[in-house]
Structure formats: C-alpha cells, structure tokens
C-alpha cells in the first residue's frame, strides 16, 4: 500500500458532496475555494465545512465579516496552515458573536468543545478534544513524499532538527527543507539561507524520519 501525506484528524471525516453553497452578498465563495487549493488546502473539505457552518442552527450570519471569519476557520480546517494565526482570531470573533454552533459545525466537533479547543490551540497547535487523555502515542500527520508521487522530495528525509514551535528543519539529500505543521495542515519548503533553529521544541511532539519511507511522521508521544 502506498502511504500518502495527510492528517489523522481528517481520517474519519470525508468531505461529502452537498447542495449549492448559499449566496452571500459581497463574497465570492467559489473564489475562496479556489484560493484554498492555491494555498495548499483541500478545496472539497473547505466546501463541505463551510456549508456545514452556514447550515448550522442559528446561522446564516447576516454580516459579511462574520461569514468571512467563518470561511477563514473553514480554510484553516481544510489545511491552509498559513491562515492559522488569523483563523484563531476569527474563531474567537465567531464565539464573541454567538456563532458557536456554526464554528463547531465547521470544525466538526460538539458546540460545547469549541471554547476549550480555541483556548487549548493557543498553547498546543496539535490539540484535538477527541484525543485528550488517550494515554498512548498516536500519529498526528504524515508529511512530505516522493516527487514521483506528487511529493516534494527526490531523496529520503534524513535528520530532523526542531526549529521552533511547530517547525522543523529536515535534511533531504544535500538540501535543507523546512517543515511547518499544526493539527490541520502543513507546509514544506526549501529552507532559506537564513533558516535557523530557535531552540524551541514542540512539547510532547516528535517528527520521525523512517529509512524506508519518503514520508515524515508527526507523532504525539505517550503522556
């Protein structure tokens, strides 16, 4: 079996085809979906998450800004890691505006867990309520892959050096690559000459390279 990159949080939830997206005046949601793909996210997951949020009881938010915030959370949920900081802001804003049901639907969790999730994500970028207290090590994500299968690398990833919160430098052949990851998404890019480790580790999380695979594994260690 060929293993593909992906995040465990998506393992149980497959995006489904649904009805047409509601029309929101002033926002081009089709453009947003295309941009999610351009920014490295899953366009279908964004589509289904945002629809779920807009259909949730007590939604459709009347303000354009609220829909835009909901879209940011949906794009983050769909793997756009570049939106992480703004999505956490948007998540807080949605909660402030009484849209807990909508964001819960977007994220795929019970409304009662949303506030705790938002708070915990600020200190632990890999936190997911369903995994709390699991008591064993578990896989968070697989990252990278062979160029011939659509991945970034021509050689097996080698040594992994922690480079900050959610950041790692990886030796791949003669090149140095930079990996950034959180619960929902990741980014892999050639490290610039200024890339440096800031000696900040990600507590309880390890990135492991396996000699027989082109994929890196992000693993939560047993508590």
């Amino acid at each position: 079996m060929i293993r593909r990159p992906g995040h465990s949080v998506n393992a149980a939830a497959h995006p489904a085809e649904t009805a047409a997206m509601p029309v929101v005046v002033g926002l081009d949601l089709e453009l947003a979906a295309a941009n999610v793909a351009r920014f490295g996210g899953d366009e279908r997951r964004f589509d289904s998450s945002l629809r779920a949020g807009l259909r949730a009881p007590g939604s459709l938010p009347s303000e354009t800004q609220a829909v835009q915030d909901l879209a940011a959370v949906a794009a983050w949920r769909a793997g756009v890691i570049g939106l992480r900081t703004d999505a956490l802001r948007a998540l807080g804003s949605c909660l402030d505006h009484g849209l807990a049901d909508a964001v819960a639907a977007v994220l795929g969790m019970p409304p009662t867990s949303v506030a705790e999730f938002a708070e915990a994500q600020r200190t632990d970028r890999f936190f997911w309520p369903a995994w709390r207290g699991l008591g064993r090590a578990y896989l968070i994500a697989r990252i990278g892959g062979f160029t011939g299968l659509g991945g970034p690398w021509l050689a097996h990833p080698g040594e992994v050096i922690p480079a900050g919160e959610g950041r790692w430098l990886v030796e791949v052949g003669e090149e140095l690559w930079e990996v950034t990851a959180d619960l929902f998404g990741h980014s892999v890019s050639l490290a610039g000459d200024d890339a440096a480790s800031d000696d900040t580790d990600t507590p309880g999380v390890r990135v492991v390279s396996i000699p027989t695979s082109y994929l890196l594994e992000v693993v939560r260690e047993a508590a």
Partner: protein
Amino acid sequence: MKDRWQKTSASPTVPHVHHGGPRDGLTAADLFRSPEETVALDEKLRRTYFWLVNKAVISPFYDVEFDAAKANRFPLGDAGAEITLPTQPAYSSNVLLPLLTFAVGGKCLMIGGPGRGKTTLAVLMGVLSGAAPEDVRRHLQQGQPQLTVSDLVGLPLPRDLVSAGSLEEITIAWKSWLTARVKIVDEYNRIPTKTQSALLTMVAEGYVESHDQLRRTAPEEGVESWFFTANDDAGGGTFQVIQALKDRLDVTVQAFGFNGRFFDELVTRVEAGERPEEHVPDSLVFSPDEQTAMLAAIRAVPLPADVRRRLEYFTGQFEFVQHGGQRFEYRTKDVVATAGGDVGAVIDANSGADLVVDLGAQTLNGLSVRALQTLILYAKASAWFRGAAEVGVDDVRAMVPFVLRGKLLPNPQHPRFEAGDKELAHDPASWLTDLFDTAMKQFVALGLDRDDPVGDLLAELGGGLDGLDRLTVSRRLTRIESEVRRISKVGKIYGRDYDDLVALKYLHQRYSNYLHWLEGA
C-alpha cells in the same frame, strides 16, 4: 470564442519552492482576493517570460542554463558540437535579456538577420509597459540614412522661426516618443553619425537639445528602458555606430531564427491575421508603480561576499599587460591603446607568461566601471527573476556573455583564435562564457576560495584605523610587504596579481601614512 492568447502560465512557475502553500501570514481577506491581485512581481515577470516565449515569439532556444555541472551532455557530429540537457529551468536569451532590460530600466541591443522577431519583441516590451500597440509602433524610430536630429527629437514651429527675437522664443514641437517608458530604435546602425550623437545625449544624459532648449527624456513615472536593433554587430551597416553609443548599451543579445518544427503556430497566425502585441493579457502589463517597485526589489537582492570575490578575480584578469608601460601602475592595455599602440603586439611581446594560463592575453582591453555595474545589476535581476534569495555564481555566469559582448574585445592574434577553437572567433557569447568558466577553475585551483591573504588585509583595514597602536600598524605593514615579496618571487605576473599588487600598495600607503601621523603626534 475564447482568445487563445490570454492563457498565461499557472503559478507557481518556480518548481519545488512550496508544498502545502505559505506557512504563515495569510488573512481571511486573502481568501477573497483573485490570484492576479496577490501575485508577486517576480512571479508576474516569470509568467510574462513564459507567455512571451511560448505564445508571442515562439523561441524554443534554451541557451541560458544554470546548472552546467549537472547537465547531461551529448556529443554531436565530428566537429566538437554537443547539446546539453539541463536539470534546472533554462531560458531563451533573446527573450530573457530584453525582459530583464525592461525590468532594470536598461538598454538592450538585439542583433540578427531580418525577420527574427527583434522588432516584435521590442514592441511587446512597449506594450508590457502599458502603452497601446499602435502607440508603440508610432513611437518606434526607424533608422535610415536620411534621419535628421529634427526627425528624431522634433521641429521648431515655423511661425516662431520667423517672428522670434531670440532662441528662447522658439517653441519646439517635441516628439511624443521622447518621454515614452519604452523607447525603440530600429536598425540603429543605419542612422547618420550626427543623429547618433543626439541619440547618445538622450541615452547617456537623459535629455535632448534643440535650438538652445532642453527636454528631459526620462518618463515622469516608472522606469525607462531602451531597445535597439541591428542586423550587424561588427561595424557594418550604412553608418559605423559611434563607440560612445555602443558603450552605453548594457546588453547585446542574438536573435535566433525560426525553428521549422513550430510551423503550425505560424500557419495559425497567418490564417487568423494576428499579431502578438495586440493580444498581450492585461494581467501581464506592468504599471509605473510596479516597474519602480520591481527595480527596487532587484537592486535589493544581496550579492554575497564569496560571489563578489569570484567576480573580482574574473574582472581583474584583463587590464594588465606586461609591456604596457615602464612604471608598474602604467602596465595596462588602456595605456597602450590611448598612446596609439598595438595591444595585440604588446601582448605577443610578453614571452615570459603562459598565454594559456594568462586569460588577459585573450582580450585587447579591460572592463569599464560601467560594464561592471551593469553586470552586477543584471546578475541581481537574474537571481530575482529565478526566485533566488541572493545572487549566485550561476547568475553572474549567465549574464557575462550578454553584458560583456562588445565591451571585452577578443585578441585575434591569440593562439586560441588562430589555431585553437576557431568557432570562438565568431561566437563571442561562447568565448566569454568559456573565459568565465576558466577563471572560476583557476580561482579554485589557486585555493582562493579558502585562502585570500589580500582580501584578509583589506578586511582588516575595513575595520578602521582609529585606536590602532604603532606596534599593530608595523605588524600589518610587515605582512603587506611579505605578501608583495611572495608575489615578486614567483617571477611571472598575471592580471590577477596586478590588482592584488595595486591593492597592497594602497594598503601600505594607508598604514604608513597613519604611522607617520602617529609618530608625528
């Protein structure tokens, strides 16, 4: 019907830079912006390049390569030809160089026989600057033997010529092309010498003069670039091009012929009656502000110290000639040339040096500061265009044949051209690349990438003289003298030693003057 010209390359055009999108910095608003609004300027320039090369001028000649060491090489025929298949993106020089000229606000000469797309490319550059195709064609200056200065810059109003009491009262009807952001002079080697001089003033000084009145030719906003075409680069044409005007041209690029394997596109164009300049996608047009920002970004690309050192080594080869003068400082090709001497004969008289090792023996002149500045700017533009964070040796190597063509002149008496690689005698681009590659091999063979005593001494002085005591200064003077002694003992002197020795004398002067001052105090 969908306009087939409007398709542009999908971003990103640089492979393997990002997998999974940017790692931070996005906001919710970015989700609702069209890709055209958020595309970076370097990406826009790359997309423009690919549109030009794939849609507009059909130039499948990928001669600018960036990974010479890793490319696969296949020998062809029995005359030493080979074709290389690079592993990194390669580019077509006759499109890349005009486009980089557009980006840096330079001056590009395109040479080649008739019907090779030179004028079309120049007109396309005008359209990329935002001008309408018909305006660009109207502003194009067609070189011809009767072209007068008035034809070029404009006429005094006849009414004023009769009634004016002084030159200041004469109104000049300036030609509108003078302030265009992209200026095109077609077949510039057919322009009479006097008119060439007026052109030189515009190119060099940025103004024109007529009847004691001046007009600035730089555009009010954006960046000005010039495109010249000629079907001869060896002094032919109706009029000899004045050397001062030739010296002002930043890059010279050869236009290629049409590849017969791409005839289908030609047939389509004939059938549709289409011209590429009338179909430039709006998304590829650069506003004046974008051009200004692009130039600032290119200038800001760093040139690392190790690349600069290699560039210094290469350019230092050419000024020195052993029998150029009596004093050491005067032993240069320029001293010989300005005294009316035969530089080739003076080089030939140097029986002490190995002509194969002495790269300077292959040229009749050294490099001007203007040429060096141009090389630096175009190397930065190359790095920026390729999405690199800083200039690499490959960027310098790629630009050398186009920037130095016509500026670094081959010595036809050198055995290289007489008996060696005869093809190099009429292929200046390959010769210049070979010259650069040989210099880089020498640089490594001499261990200068690891050990650079003169560079260390210069860096030490760069730290400043303030606070240095007499003992420290004396020690440094001793080190300088021992370095001069080391070169002196070798017995043979090359161009690379000339620059080092002049720099060592400069250091010696700075320290000894400071020591005198200390002792006087």
